């Protein structure tokens, strides 16, 4: 069972992601946990672990970059892949995201296929890393 935390303040966007991931045949048994803000994410993270965190960058109060930095500083979440989503325009924000340790980036708007493809990629890369570590 894969567990994915989706951090996004738009309800429909969360529904979209959930609906896409849950109907993707390559992702057997995926459990999507939704957080409506950066704070909700901070509350939900200790209830992890999560195999992947998908977060919007632009959110009120705690933004996606701040959440990402928090995770990278925290031993428990340091290795969790983080997929950022934001609009094509915000290149600077995306750049900063990669410097902070984001493992992927998806520009809005995206299709369900593009999302699933990226999620599968992220999860597989994480498995390889884990293999290295554990091996």
């Amino acid at each position: 069972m894969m567990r994915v935390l989706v951090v996004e303040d738009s309800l429909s966007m969360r529904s979209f992601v959930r609906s896409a991931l849950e109907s993707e045949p390559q992702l057997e048994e995926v459990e999507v946990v939704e957080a409506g803000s950066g704070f909700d994410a901070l509350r939900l993270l200790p209830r992890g672990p999560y195999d992947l965190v998908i977060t919007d960058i632009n959110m009120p109060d705690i933004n996606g970059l701040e959440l990402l930095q928090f995770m990278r500083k925290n031993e428990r979440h340091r290795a969790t892949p983080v997929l950022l989503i934001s609009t094509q325009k915000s290149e600077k924000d995306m750049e900063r995201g990669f410097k902070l340790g984001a493992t992927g980036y998806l520009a809005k708007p995206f299709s369900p296929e593009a999302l699933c493809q990226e999620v599968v990629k992220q999860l597989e890369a994480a498995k390889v890393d884990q293999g290295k570590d554990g091996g």
Partner: protein
Amino acid sequence: MAEIGDKAREEFFSEAQEIIEQLSRSLLSLDAAEKGGRSDPSLVNEAFRAVHTLKGLAGLFGASRMGQLSHELEDVLDDLRLGRINLSANVLDLLFEAVDLFGHVLTAEREHSDEPIPQLDELLMRIASMGQSAPSVSHPIAEYDLDPGIMAVLTEYEEHRLRSNVEQGLGLFRLRVHFDLATIDKALEDIKQRGKAHGEIITYLPTGEATSPDTIELDLLMASSDDLATLRASLGAENIVIEEVPRRRISSATIPPPGLTGQGPVTSVVPPKPESVVPRARHSEIAPQEAQGSLRSVTQTVRVDIRKLDHLMNIVGELAIVRGALSRTAERLRGEGMRQLASELHRLHRTFDRRLSEMQAGILEVRMVPLGQVFDRLARVVRQISREVQKEIRLVITGAETEIDKLIVEELSDPLMHMIRNAIDHGIESSRQRESVGKPPAGTIALNAYQKGNHVMIEIEDDGAGIDEAALLEKAVRIGKVDREDVGDLTREEILALIFLPGVSTRDEASDFSGRGVGMDVVKTNIAKLGGVIDVHSERGIGTKMTITLPITLAIVSALVIRVASQVFAIPLSSVSEAIAFDERGIRVVDGREVMTLRGTTLPLCRLRQLFQLTGTRDGRGFVVVTEVGNRRLGLVVDHLVGQQDIVIKALGETLASVRGFAGATEMEDQKVGLVLDAAALIEEVLAGIDAPRELMRSNG
């Protein structure tokens, strides 16, 4: 493309609608702030975020025109929030227009319509022609010794706000706060509110160093013109430590801090290497309740399609019929001597009755929404029209929290909008005229809502010129609505009520704003469809007040069931004030209309038997049901009072829908169908002196 479910699509539409309303509210606040000489960057950012979210959603759900509009607007708002353009009245106008257009576009997307929307193309062209100036390139932030960890996580907007504050010479402060995770929302809202008085909070960075798993430590970066001592005195607390961000020494001031230019590498922030990764915790290591807890949803609310609530309400209505049957069965058992069984059944019936009432009340409560939803839209209309006609208008809203059935709110928005247009266009005088009679130059429109018993009252009051009764009367005579010889007999109230007749207006030429195909007659009809009435009061030179009385809900009503000849009718209790025994001897005839005296006042009567031309023997000793809607009363003469019953009103079929006087049909306890009388329409018909029976029965036949 993978299928995105209908449910997700529905959620998209309702969220888009909410976002547009929120955008409208942000713009109204922004407009008010600008007019008050304050500028509030957080409002611009709120508007930006709203449009940004819309754009993202439009892209996902293939709503291309909405995507196009939000894309262009996002650019404008981004320029605004990043200080590349200034917020002028023109830009605000454009934003307000866009809000209206979003409404059209959303409807078109929902209905899969690809009809061209010319206003959209026009607005997009105007946006495209707006220029922008280059952002300033100085880096005064370099003067500050800011933690690179903070600089690395600022979004472009936050960085801009930081720069803009520093450029204005404000000092920077770091607030290190410890909060309980469970109550963090409230705690932060509190500090945000208190902080507002001293400056702007730029960002909230979780440090990752907490004292326990239930607490969190955040670094807040704040810009303020106050000094450290003032901030400490005002914001400091046991869990909040405030420090000033020191300025750098001279030599480093020339080096831009990392991350600010978007070009230089951020050397101080090292992304974690996969090799250094700590092995992940396995699922088995999680405490059971933690794993369980994670399944909980974050929000405590659900969205419900109103049709589902209607369905529930219908079931409740059917259960009410079962309740009646239970009661009758208990009576029958008692009659047949089975007292023990009868009283057991009676007890069950009582419990059932109580629970059913609770259920009804519960469903009704779910359907209720605050009137503020529609008032926000009206505030936008006021702003727009007052600019178009160049009148200064102050809108004062009270009672926005008053709740009413969602369906009624939807239907209310057009009539209210029309009345507001009327008030601005016809009611309020120009500033010059106002000043010449000693009024303040700005006109005031008050929009008040409050609950009164089973009704919600909405008042639209303006301090304009009032209705010209003579002109109104003249017009009514000219178009043949009033005979010239009857003019002297009309009371002031009756004259003012002429405004609701079709074709009557105090102006000969309808203006652009009020002459858009709907007059006050249509407003009145639409309000009547909701079971409401509208009254008008006006004083020359002082102003006009329209009062709308509406039922709180249309879904389920308590009704008085009556019988005339062999026909059964229901009258909603909300419009019944009392029922008294009918006494033929107390009847007088005034102006060809039957009336009786009720506690010193004259009550006009209407015999339903005659009105509906029912034949058949009289079925009881006769009662007068006193109906009251707004400030008008009418006594309905009926044969027999059957009793009180909760009914679910169902719409009449197409052939009967146009018949005035009936609100719908309902299923009675004996499973027969009865007609529900529309008291407001009856009062209207009868008191207007129109030949009601013929009118009603003609449409009926």
